[in-house]
């Protein structure tokens, strides 16, 4: 067990280093820089050179990368190329919004998905099963941002009300905070609930055909006991893995939901950073998103190995 954990941890290190490199290279090989975006053609070439030198962007890619990594190791993520304030400050202000949004979306998506999956699998080919399956297909097809747009547009037309948008910190006004979070979280979690439901259903159907479940029935246990004590535990394993993989989609989707619901989160900040070629801001944001993904999936793998002892030998 210990050796497996250590091996997994070591394997995660090159991936994280790769993530920093890709983050760094991806946005720098693209043409146009912050000076272009800010000044366009209204700047003389020598002025531009000077500005780039001030920002440290006249060095080679490798030298810039080493500078940046050196800073990151010391906890210094650099100054925003757009506002000249430390990007870490902006990041700290915005990250709670996105974390809360993603967590709520995940709770919503997983709860709904797992429950619907259980209902669907235990009543295979019944009307509820078909209903759940069709709804899940729709849930996969309906873009979260369309749902969110409708949520904002339709009530305004029908009743002249616009649902609350924006963000209130939880510490300031918990009720207002939750109210403003619910709609974006639900539209963000929709696709996840559909994916979870489909997986939960097929996984539970598999498990329900296993011998040990038949034995549990044969012992005369109640449906509740068979499900909760014997079937669900095993059926949940693949579901957990896929939820780990979906973290990335959730954080990507947050970009759009934050734009629609005018929330000052990491996603909005990322879109702005891309638009203004604000490399340093983009780097800290994307590094965070990618690191969350790597860490969550590492945790899932380790959790998995604890639940299923066969994995350790692999």
């Amino acid at each position, binding site marked *: 067990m210990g050796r497996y954990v250590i091996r997994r941890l070591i394997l995660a290190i090159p991936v994280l280093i790769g993530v920093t490199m890709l983050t760094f290279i*991806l946005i720098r*090989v693209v043409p146009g820089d912050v000076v272009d975006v800010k000044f366009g053609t209204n700047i003389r070439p020598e002025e531009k050179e000077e500005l780039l030198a001030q920002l440290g962007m006249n060095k080679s890619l490798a030298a810039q990368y080493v500078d940046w990594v050196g800073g990151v190791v010391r906890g210094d993520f650099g100054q925003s190329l757009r506002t000249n304030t430390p990007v870490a400050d902006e990041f700290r202000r915005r990250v709670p919004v996105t974390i809360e949004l993603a967590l709520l979306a995940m709770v919503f998506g997983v709860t709904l998905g797992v429950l619907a999956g259980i209902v669907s699998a235990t009543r295979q080919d019944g009307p509820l099963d078909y209903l759940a399956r069709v709804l899940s297909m729709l849930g996969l097809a309906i*873009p979260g941002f*369309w749902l969110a747009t409708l949520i904002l547009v339709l009530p305004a037309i029908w009743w002249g009300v616009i649902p609350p948008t924006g963000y209130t910190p939880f510490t300031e006004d918990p009720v207002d905070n939750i109210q403003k979070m619910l709609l974006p979280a639900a539209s963000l979690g929709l696709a996840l609930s559909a994916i979870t439901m489909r997986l939960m259903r097929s*996984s539970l159907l598999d498990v329900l055909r296993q011998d040990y479940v038949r034995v549990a029935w044969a012992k005369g246990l109640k449906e509740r006991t068979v499900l909760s004590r014997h079937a669900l535990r095993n059926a949940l394993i693949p579901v957990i893995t896929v939820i780990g993989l979906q973290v*990335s989609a959730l*954080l990507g989707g947050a970009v759009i939901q934050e*734009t629609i619901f005018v929330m000052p989160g990491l996603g909005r900040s990322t879109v702005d950073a891309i638009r203004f070629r604000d490399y340093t801001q983009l780097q800290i944001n994307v590094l965070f998103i990618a690191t969350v993904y790597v860490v969550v999936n590492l945790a899932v793998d380790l959790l998995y190995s604890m639940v299923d002892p066969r994995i350790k030998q692999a």
Partner: protein
Amino acid sequence: MQASPAIESAGTGELVRSARKKNVVARLGRTAVRRPLGAAGALLISLLVLAAVLAPVLTVHDPEIGDFLAISAAPSDEHIMGTDGLGRDIYARVLYGARISLQVGIIAVAIAATIGTTIGLLSGYLGGWIDSVIQRLLEVVQAFPGLVLAMALVAGLGPDIKNVMIAVGIATSPGLARIVRASVMGVKANTYVEAARSIGATGPRIVLRHILPNVTAPIIVVATAGLGGAILVEASLSFLGLGPPPPAPSWGSMLNDSRLAVGVAWWSAVYPGIAISLAVFGFNLLGDALRDVWDPRLRGTR
């Protein structure tokens, strides 16, 4: 067994061919009955293709030129889905939008399939340290949300339909590479691969002649479902203003425009969204049906 006169008079080759043709039609019919959801998906996709191809015939309005006397006009006989804030006919824009969605979807998935298949074949066949390195690299790329990756690529390359295709294709390819690799690992262990190697077939020949044909089924299954995903990413990019530039009638940018008309025109928010949903729905249904038929092992995965 009754043989029809047409078949009796035909030569052997003809006979086999006509029997095969009949067989295909009959099988398609049977499949449609047994898998109504898959058939519904195929139907939706056919409608989508028809809308894209026949757009100039199905509407008299220009999708990019607005009528300034009919701004945000409600659905009527003249504009059956109404007009947007610039007086452009939404029905025409939805139809022409199918062209953009289909083009981007198909080409992006073709790019993803090419990259993904190449990487997956190499990684799965060669194994060893090359495989480990490729797998780590794929993990790195997959750590970025597809949308964020595509956004960064489009922002750099410039918002243009060609670049959207490239960005969506690249962002979709790691998932495909992993599935191809997994299938290759399974196929590689078969006796016929060993047999080919024992008669001295070279590596490239084994990969192209013996392994590739046996992993095409999962590739097609994943690519079909991936088309829906690619259409969604394109719509998301356009929604964020990173898709084909205006006035191109992309469904995503239509939805984005509609947000500016909050409280004015529900039709500008409803119809493009229905179009996106139905297109994605169609590809998902068909992908699911193909998966059940061709590759039961993938059932339940996404």
